[in-house]
């Protein structure tokens, strides 16, 4: 074996001719260098195309929506079709209300669910059922949660005989928020080093005390980051609200009545043939986008805070 290797080894030095051997200097005309440049160019072009929509959407929302910015926008009701002026005060209030209802449901349930998955479930079959359900629920289209709440609450009129209501809308949104909150809580808690738990047990703390006073505080930043993002996402959702919260041309009349929200307002007013309504749709987009970008930057700032 050794001898055969040696002989083949000797031969191999003459085989160098079978390879391309070039001078070491860079030759831009070489096919491989040209291709390399070409692909860099293409990927740069793709990246430009990918950021272009954001830039264009932001520019239009800022210009079209921003120029309508005035106090009136916040304090007045939308005009009747065909009339000028008016504001989107009711829709802003409605978005805040509906999102608040959704958050009040989804955050406690989601955080508890995340705590269960990370701290108690282990590899139990029930834990796997929960986490599988969570993955599936996260993939359910948002419109379906509207259909679900419609069938469960709106059509059955369970709330004091009311059909469409802010409450129904909030519940539909909470169905969408829930998987995100569970997921971020679970992942945040898993990042907490196990030594911290062992340390707490080591001084005789109970499981409850360990989790609520040691583990959750240690994971507060990732959890709150996830929650902020989930709220921002919910505030912009439309599909689950169209036939649960419906819309209203008036100021909110309690949480068991139909309510206007900015997102549904944009949808309704965008397809109306009246310029005044179209303009209000842009204005609502401006407010919504600003809120959501602010929430995203807040989340980013939160997570950077934890790294330093």
């Amino acid at each position, binding site marked *: 074996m050794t001898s055969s290797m040696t002989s083949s080894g000797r031969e191999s030095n003459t085989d160098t001719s079978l390879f391309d051997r070039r001078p070491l200097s860079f030759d831009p005309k070489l096919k491989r260098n040209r291709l390399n440049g070409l692909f860099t160019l293409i990927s740069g072009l793709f990246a430009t195309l990918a950021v272009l929509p954001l830039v264009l959407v932001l520019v239009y929302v800022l210009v079209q929506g921003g120029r309508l910015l005035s106090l009136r926008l916040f304090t007045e009701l939308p005009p009747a079709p065909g009339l000028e002026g008016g504001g989107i005060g009711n829709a802003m209030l409605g978005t805040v209300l509906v999102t608040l209802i959704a958050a009040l449901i989804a955050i406690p349930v989601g955080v508890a669910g995340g705590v269960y998955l990370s701290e108690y479930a282990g590899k139990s079959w029930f834990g796997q059922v929960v986490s599988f359900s969570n993955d599936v629920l996260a993939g359910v289209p948002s*419109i*379906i949660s509207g259909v679900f709440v419609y069938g469960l609450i709106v059509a059955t009129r369970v709330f004091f005989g009311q059909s469409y209501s802010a409450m129904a809308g909030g519940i539909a949104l909470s169905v969408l928020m829930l998987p995100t909150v569970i997921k971020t809580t679970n992942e945040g808690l898993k990042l907490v080093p196990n030594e911290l738990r062992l340390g707490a047990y080591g001084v005789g703390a109970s499981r409850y005390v360990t989790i609520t006073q040691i583990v959750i505080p240690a994971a507060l930043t990732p959890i709150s980051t996830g929650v902020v993002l989930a709220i921002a996402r919910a505030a912009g959702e439309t599909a689950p609200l169209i036939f649960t919260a419906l819309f209203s041309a008036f100021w909110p009349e309690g949480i068991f009545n139909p309510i206007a929200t900015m997102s549904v307002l*944009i949808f309704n007013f*965008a397809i109306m043939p009246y310029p005044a309504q179209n303009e209000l749709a842009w204005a609502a987009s401006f407010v919504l986008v600003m809120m959501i970008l602010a929430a995203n930057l807040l989340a980013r700032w939160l997570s950077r805070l934890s790294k330093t």
Partner: protein
Amino acid sequence: MTSDLGLSVDAQFTLRRRPNSEKFLDLGFRQLTLALASLVAIVLLAILVTVFQGSREAMASFGLRFIVTSAWDPVNEQYGAFVAIYGTLVTSILSLAIAVPLGVGTAIFITEDLIPARLRELIGLMVELLAAIPSVVLGLWAIFVMEPAIRPALELLHHLLGWTPFFATTPQGPGMAPAILILVVMVLPIITAIARDALNQVPIELRQGAYGVGTTRWGAIFAVILPAAISSIIGGVMLALGRAMGETMAVTMIIGNSLNFDLSLLAPGNTIASMLANQFGEADGIQVSALMYAALILMLLTFSVNVLAQWVVRRLSLKY
């Protein structure tokens, strides 16, 4: 400090009895989290049951014919969801066909050290923020900005390829083609984010190995880095496909919501989600049931795509 002192302290603690209230609290907290966690499974089940129950009447009346017929006729109470199902599949698949190269190309551009780190982070941030823009705002933008802007290009397409059935109609505002483009905008951030993570996870050793045998940067990307990341990327693409199928608002606002079948991408069309958004509020009788039936089909479609995505990731994942 000394061992017997340590012992006596230990003894003190082991002798201390835990009060019963603490034990109750411990158990109660566990049961509470368990109960709330099980809500996820219950909600999922409730969604399935609600949609299934709601669609039973339509199932009994139309059976599987519902999937392949395209009548949507409230007057004669005849319903078939073919137009919507076809629209859902065509818009989501074609939008992916455009978004995948764009998203993966962008991900490569911002992971492979082609440009300064600052710029890479900026592009990554912008793509992430794009994902945060509400779909209804994108719909508004699509109606008033995008569609008028691309109409000349669509007209050109009609001019050049009008002899094929896919571009046979003149573009007149809302239609499948603008819906596909707005879907591209919506799934692009998902694909980019997942491809970026996947590429970042390719170990540095593998890159070095490729460069070590003398590949150019793109030689290494195509031959080694992309193949190593491919399973996660495919998983991400499937997830994006699920998202595109269920995407509602932007599509509803720009697709035209036509109930008639047309092969042309330049003509108005429909998707299951946009049909639900448009008709559910005003429907009654068996139309509600037909819509629920369509919703069930949509759920099954997205569910199978998502499960397939997870299977792909697990099955194809390479150990390196």
